[in-house]
């Protein structure tokens, strides 16, 4: 999967906007998007919010977790904890990236947020790498990692599956040899 595909799926997340136009209810296949009245907040999918924002017809209201203090607390939790902390949203990275690119004026301290989110990403990536290494060294049959976001899984997927395949081949040949030796 490309990062663009993961972003496409992430755009289904709902976000609050405040439109400056009036429109009735829109009926989409995946659900209805409620009537728009100027000045009243309404929940829309992210792709729609960005489209309306680019036509300068709304103001995007950032989700509660996209706030400097909360992100800093998340970062401290991430550094302190050995495991992966729970992210406010399974599509954390993509939603944050999209909002920070398109709705910069509606989000306070956008640059600071960008740096903090990048830091969190780096910390989690390092944790992920050391966990994978532990997994390979123990030759374990399966592993469980909670609270990984979609984008992280997507970046690691091709490399991890290919190297685990190779590992499996080598172990199979080792057990084959052991069986052969014992029957002789």
């Amino acid at each position: 999967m490309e990062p663009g595909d993961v972003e496409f799926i992430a755009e289904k997340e709902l976000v609050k906007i405040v439109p400056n136009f009036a429109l009735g209810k829109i009926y989409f296949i995946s659900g209805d998007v409620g009537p728009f009245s100027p000045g009243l907040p309404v929940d829309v999918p992210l792709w729609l919010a960005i489209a309306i924002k680019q036509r300068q017809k709304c103001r995007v209201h950032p989700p509660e977790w996209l706030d400097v203090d909360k992100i800093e607390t998340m970062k401290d939790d991430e550094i302190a904890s050995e495991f992966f902390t729970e992210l406010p949203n399974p599509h954390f990275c993509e939603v944050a990236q999209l909002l920070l690119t398109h709705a910069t004026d509606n989000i306070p301290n956008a640059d600071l947020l960008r740096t903090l989110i990048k830091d969190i990403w780096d910390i989690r990536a390092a944790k992920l790498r050391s966990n994978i290494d532990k997994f390979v060294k123990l030759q374990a049959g399966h592993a469980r990692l909670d609270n990984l976001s979609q984008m992280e899984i997507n970046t690691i997927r091709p490399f991890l599956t290919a190297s685990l395949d190779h590992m499996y081949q080598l172990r199979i040949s080792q057990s084959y040899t052991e069986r052969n030796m014992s029957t002789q």
Partner: protein
Amino acid sequence: MDVSHKSSSGMLQDYMSIDDILMSSERLPSVFLVPVKGLGFLDASTNKKDIAVGTKMDLPLWLVLSLAHPRKKFISFDYTKPYKGTYREILKADASVVDLHKIGPFFYAFGQQLLTLNHNESLQMAKCLVLTFMERFRKIMDWSINAYEHDNSERQEKLDEVERNLFKLGQKSLQSFQQWEMGESRKLSSSELVSRHRKRKRDMSE
């Protein structure tokens, strides 16, 4: 979705895979146990018409695999240097600094094929392959997922073919992530082939 590139698949060889063909052309030192009439020309050191018992020759793997089958006993063979005791000790000491490409670009695949033949050192060699890969894995992962500098060809020199493929996969996912982050997946740009074509009238009119 792209199909992942599969090089040699363990103990079975893929007939069509070029990597497998290249791999099985590597040679093993072997000793003939039976005389063979008429094939004396294969042995470059003598000019006899037949191959006598006890002639030592380096035979390619594909030949050894058919001749050294336990029931047939035409030749007896020995492992090449990288799969023997001394090299195994070196790999046990520190596997990540060994230049696996120089030893033989298909270290793991060749080793796995050797395991199909019976040899008294098979078990240690099998364990050695597993442990070597486990140790080198960390380095490969770290290098391929953090490829910001441009000396990647240097780092790739010490990896054998399988490891190089893994490296490329890691780099590819890193590059597509970086491009996405910079917003390039949003832009539509004309492909390189088209803009280099020089027959494009639009460029000439600008």
